[in-house]
């Protein structure tokens, strides 16, 4: 992918990237920093992306790495702990945004990508480098915890 194509694609994707980073990190400034760093890293390596149809999943993967770096940094300072899957009542008591933020990481990632960033389940699986069936299973577990009542096909088909 050349730089002009990268620039055009990133302008379309930046909103989704920001939503992903915001829900992942829970703070606007941190989310903007993560998007900035991901876009910079994407810019300097976009020539390596040979199949432009994977641009969204490729950029999402770079962004998630940035978010993970930020979370690792935070562990040195203050961080809000994840809740275990058994803590159904605690999840119920939280506003949805906070509940998503405190999901176990293996459930939080697919939920953010599938239901807030606009990726399909297949793209979510590609971005997270997990089998599509695993992504679908994690989505179902996450939806149950969040008490979100989506149809079965929402998990497998087009983004909501």
């Amino acid at each position, binding site marked *: 992918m050349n730089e002009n194509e990268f*620039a055009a694609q*990133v*302008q379309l994707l*930046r*909103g989704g990237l*920001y*939503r992903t980073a*915001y*829900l992942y990190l829970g703070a*606007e*400034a*941190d989310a*903007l*920093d993560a*998007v*900035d*760093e991901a*876009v*910079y*890293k*994407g*810019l*300097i*390596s976009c020539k*390596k992306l040979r199949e432009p149809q994977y641009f969204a999943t490729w950029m999402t993967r770079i962004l998630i*790495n940035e978010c993970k*770096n930020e979370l*690792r*940094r*935070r562990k*040195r*300072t203050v961080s809000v702990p994840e809740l275990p899957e058994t803590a159904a009542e605690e999840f119920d008591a939280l*506003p*949805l*945004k906070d509940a998503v933020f405190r999901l176990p990481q293996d459930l939080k990632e697919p939920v953010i990508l599938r*239901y*807030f960033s606009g990726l399909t389940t297949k793209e979510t699986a590609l971005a997270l480098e997990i089998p599509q069936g695993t992504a679908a299973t994690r989505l179902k577990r996450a939806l149950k915890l*969040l*008490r*979100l*009542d*989506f149809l079965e096909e929402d998990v497998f088909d087009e983004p909501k």
Partner: protein
Amino acid sequence: MNRNEEYDSLLAELEETPLKLDFTLERALLKRREHRRHMQKTVFAPLGTLAAVFAVFVLLVNISPTFAYAAGRLPLLRDLAKFVAFSPSLSEAVDNNYVQPMGLEQTANGITAKVEYVIVDQKQLNIFYTLNSDTYENLMADPDISSADESKLEGFSVISGDPGETNDKLRKITVDFAQGTMPDALTVKLRVKKSRAAEAENTVAPPQESSLESLYFPNDETEPETIAEMSFALKFDPAFTDTGEIITLDHSFVLDGQTLSLDSAEIYPTHMRFVFDDEEDDTSWMTGLEFYVENEKGERFEGISNGISGYGKKDSPMEQQFMLESPFFSESKHLTLYITGATWLDKDMERVHVDLKNKTADALPEGVAFASSEKYYSGWLLKFTATAFDKISCQIWRDGYFDAQGKRYDFNNYSFTSVGSLYQEGSTTEAAKNQFSIWLPLKNYPYDEVWLCPAYSRHVTLDTPVIIEIK
């Protein structure tokens, strides 16, 4: 509100993204440019060396044995042809087998560097090389250029836009002589490092404050560690290093009321360049030029947009040399220069006084407004809005600013938005469509007044182009 309604509400809330997000691409481009600029070193030799070279000559290079050798290896040049596809001059050079294969290889610390080809002429050298390692994925190299006996060499610029490529991919170093000519041999030392991006992926950076403060007043980045050093002795075929045509013109002309002279036009395989001079009596310095060259077949040769585009005059704000794509292989009998516009810096605006506290300036470049100045603990952040000449954001301040005692400070960075951003931000005037913003951080600057150096005072688009016959 049930969970699904809460989901819809949260989605709507997340649709509202911060304004700063709109400029994430600009910040990435700026960061990359700063990184590349760091790689570029310019050293000027004393003036006077250029004046000695006023002979007109052309060498018939296609009888050189090196060309025959290059043609024999033609299939191997495919990767090079692909690499230079975005440079019209270098593409023409490859198409015409104007390439000297080098085939030099060295290994150090598990990293192998191969200098595969050079495209060299009387003024410019383009080195094409690869790096390969079983241990590292993304490597970059800082080049040091010296003479054949490794003594200091002067009068050249180096550009190495190498942000970190993958193994075996071609990379390029450009060495260009502003004054003087290409030696028959020189030494290039490569200091190989892990790319900044690769390093960032493997390290956990310390916590950073996320604010305007950290955006415009970042901590100084440390250089990645050198992991291997290789030194290559490059010997050039004289048939290449002698190639070039210098046409002495000494043509005096008036442009927008200022008297200039076009001293010479130089035509090389890698580029064409014009050398201008001005007169002491002129009231303005020329800091930019809009131009093109056309041959008798109607083929146009435009200014270089990706690479070294010109040189300033020593001890003057004047832009003296302008580079453009080369007509060398076009077999042009006649070449004509068309000057369609110019940018000027009035001599009484070399430095302008700016009152930071009261947000006023004694003078500003045409179309520029002083939007804000805010004091931060380590300095000031200034914002200006400017009108673009040609739909693109441009530099409005030259590097360096001064305090009341005349002490010079250098900018660490600055940033600007794309043209039209003010319109997108809500300003509905027609003028806003051609405007952009620029932020200028004055780091570690405690004073309430500063002297800035404008890059220009005004711009003019000519109703009738100035036309100069080159040959």
